[in-house]
């Protein structure tokens, strides 16, 4: 049971401020699902023919979280196997949970469910004490983490627009209201793709299964001239372009430390540093990977695999391949933060400030008893860090702590 005050605020929002201009296309073909404050479980298989029906439902039932299916169904209210799947939008989720940052140690905490062992940072696969795989996790919507999620989102958009050729009006970009970004592609071109075809799209964007020999041939020098090997020359788009420009930047910038970090041997590093200019020239002139004594195909493979990792976008692979997925409904409140899921124009992503644009409550203040919270910002104001104290905060800031279970309301 969640705190009564959260429910009251959400109720206020859904009775006054809730608008959806960007309602899901063909909403009568979608399944809706809600987590209700009163029950704490998911209520699924709902259908709304019109926007005002949905709004009335929200007003009357006040869910802590609201979702709709990426899928279109003949009968959204039927049981799962009888719904009659007719297609689905292509959905991407970029969540800070999947991106390692150097601040997750500061604000993320986990506790092993079976033995109670606690730690900070990215959640391990197994508990180091008892080997159990289930944890109670407390994360935080942190600015730095969100910046790295944004960087991944920019890479994703680049794939979608340049490689997959989606038009900007087929792509909707959202801040999830918590720790990341959602990208919805609504297009006839992908509507009927099954899960295995979507997996190919995921693998493309993540660089999974990429074999560099298809994109980057090696160049051999003989007395007679040069010979570009199997594969095509680097071209000016797609993965070949990413590898080629990545390889150039890499050669320009790589110092010894960096080269050691990606696992190259000392003598190889030495050769690269000494022949940097020649290697760069070879790369640019022949559109292939120049081989010299000490830097062979194996070394290049290592380097390019590192570049693939840098250039790929860290998306949640499960979300995109799931053709029945429920996704958060735009403009509804995120029960984990009290922020809205908001749409932003692709062209505005650089200057987008999630801690400003996603605020749902702009007036008033609430007195809360904080257990612990890292420093954070809402709007233009910064708060914390807090440890065991009573304090009066602007509504949005207080709500964030309440939703995160880092504070309780003081009546």
């Amino acid at each position, binding site marked *: 049971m969640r705190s009564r005050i959260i429910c009251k605020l959400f109720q206020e929002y859904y009775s006054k401020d809730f608008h959806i201009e960007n309602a899901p296309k063909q909403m009568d073909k979608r399944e809706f699902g809600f987590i209700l404050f009163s029950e704490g479980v998911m209520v699924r298989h709902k259908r709304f023919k019109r926007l005002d029906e949905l709004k009335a439902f929200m007003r009357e039932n006040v869910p802590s979280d609201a979702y709709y299916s990426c899928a279109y169904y003949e009968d959204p209210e039927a049981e799962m196997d009888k719904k009659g799947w007719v297609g689905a939008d292509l959905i991407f989720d970029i969540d800070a949970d999947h991106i390692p940052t150097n601040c997750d140690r500061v604000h993320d905490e986990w506790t092993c469910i079976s033995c109670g062992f606690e730690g900070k940072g990215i959640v391990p696969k197994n508990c180091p004490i008892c080997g159990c795989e289930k944890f109670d996790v407390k994360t935080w919507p942190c600015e730095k983490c969100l910046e790295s999620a944004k960087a991944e989102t920019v890479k994703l958009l680049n794939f979608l627009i340049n490689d997959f050729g989606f038009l900007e009006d087929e792509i909707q970009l959202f801040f999830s209201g918590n720790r990341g970004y959602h990208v919805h592609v609504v297009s006839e071109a992908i509507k009927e*793709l099954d899960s295995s075809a979507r997996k190919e799209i995921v693998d493309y964007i993540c660089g999974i299964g990429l074999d560099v020999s298809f994109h980057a041939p090696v160049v051999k020098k003989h007395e007679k001239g040069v010979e570009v090997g199997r594969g095509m020359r680097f071209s000016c788009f797609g993965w070949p372009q990413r590898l080629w420009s990545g390889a150039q930047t890499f050669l320009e910038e790589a110092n010894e430390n960096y080269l050691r970090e990606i696992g190259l041997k000392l003598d190889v590093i030495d050769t690269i540093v000494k022949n940097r200019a020649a290697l760069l020239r070879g790369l640019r002139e022949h559109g292939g990977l120049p081989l010299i004594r000490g830097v062979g195909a194996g070394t290049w493979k290592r380097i390019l695999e590192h570049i693939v990792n840098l250039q790929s976008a860290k998306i949640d692979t499960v979300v995109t391949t799931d053709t029945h997925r429920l996704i958060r409904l735009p403009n509804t409140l995120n029960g984990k933060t009290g922020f809205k899921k908001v749409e932003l124009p692709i062209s505005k992503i650089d200057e987008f400030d999630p801690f400003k644009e996603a605020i749902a409550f702009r007036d008033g203040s609430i007195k809360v008893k904080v257990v612990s919270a890292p420093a954070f910002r809402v709007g233009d104001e910064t708060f914390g860090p807090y440890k065991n104290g009573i304090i009066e905060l602007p509504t949005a800031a207080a709500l964030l702590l309440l939703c995160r279970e880092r504070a309780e309301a003081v009546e």
Partner: protein
Amino acid sequence: MLTSLIKFTKSDLARYPFLKESAEYVKSLDIKVEDLQSPEFSRVLERARERVEEAILYTLVSRKLKHEEIEILSFPVAIMLTVATGNNFIKERYALAEAKQAYLDMKVESKEKIMAIAGNFSWRIWLASEAPYTFKIHFSDCLRNTVHLRDKKWKLVNRLMAGGTVYLTRSETARLLSEEVRRHIKRRLEASEVPKLPQFITDVAQKLSMLTVEKIGKSELEGMPKTVKVEAFPPCVSALYEAASTGRHISHIGRFTLTSFLVNIGMPIDAIIDLFRNSSDFNERLTRYQVEHIAGERGSRTKYNPPKCELLKTHGVCTNPNGVCAKINHPLAYYLRRGTAAKTGQRATNNKMLN
């Protein structure tokens, strides 16, 4: 888009009898099933029989272009014969054989004609000027036809793609088109329930079925090892099995993989449910529901297959693949290889193996 306005000739229709235009041509002749019995059409029926026979024997269907009319007409009749056999092996084979032959023809076909055939299947196709490529097609048309192909050159991530189009050489295009042909014919073979067919048709179909049993033998239809062989599990399933028996948490996809795998190799449902008993959040009713669902005993009544290795790799379920893994693309294929390769003589008791 360059959907060319080229007209197919009658000889084209004979070579590519799966085209819409061929079907329209046949329709325009307005022939009834019964007519096939008349001497006038006996050669059509004979050629249709021969098409299916060639498919069964050689996985190819020759082209006999001297008699274009017979060639065109015999295709829908061959489809009818294949449906009438009710034999899935023959259906697969026939679709594959027609597609293979189409590949050989399309490989040497003119650009215009390739584009017209592609247009017939509603592909979005353009000419490409970047050597060594001849065509570019929309990635969704590509994906529909590559997801079942194993060679890593067909993985989208290994293709050159820009602006939503994938670049292909001429023979690659023919290859993907032939895949489209195979799927198209399979759909036709699976569509609708079998119509009531006259005796003379079912007689021919029956002979074709018998030919299949003779020539192909039972080997290709042979199933799984009779008992559950834990030692033949692939590494991924072994790890999941181990985790389940020791009550460790398993991801959703991991649970699905393990359950569908065990269901498919014929482990009894109760034994599978028992396996999950050690989990801290074990719920008998829910587990039974899930297992029975995957086994196809509830809901949609379809038995689910475990995901392919590729998908398992994407989701991190594939752990420590070994040498055998390199030769297969599905955990069940691993089990089949190891299960039948291992000595089948000694029968371990079920109890011991289920532990």
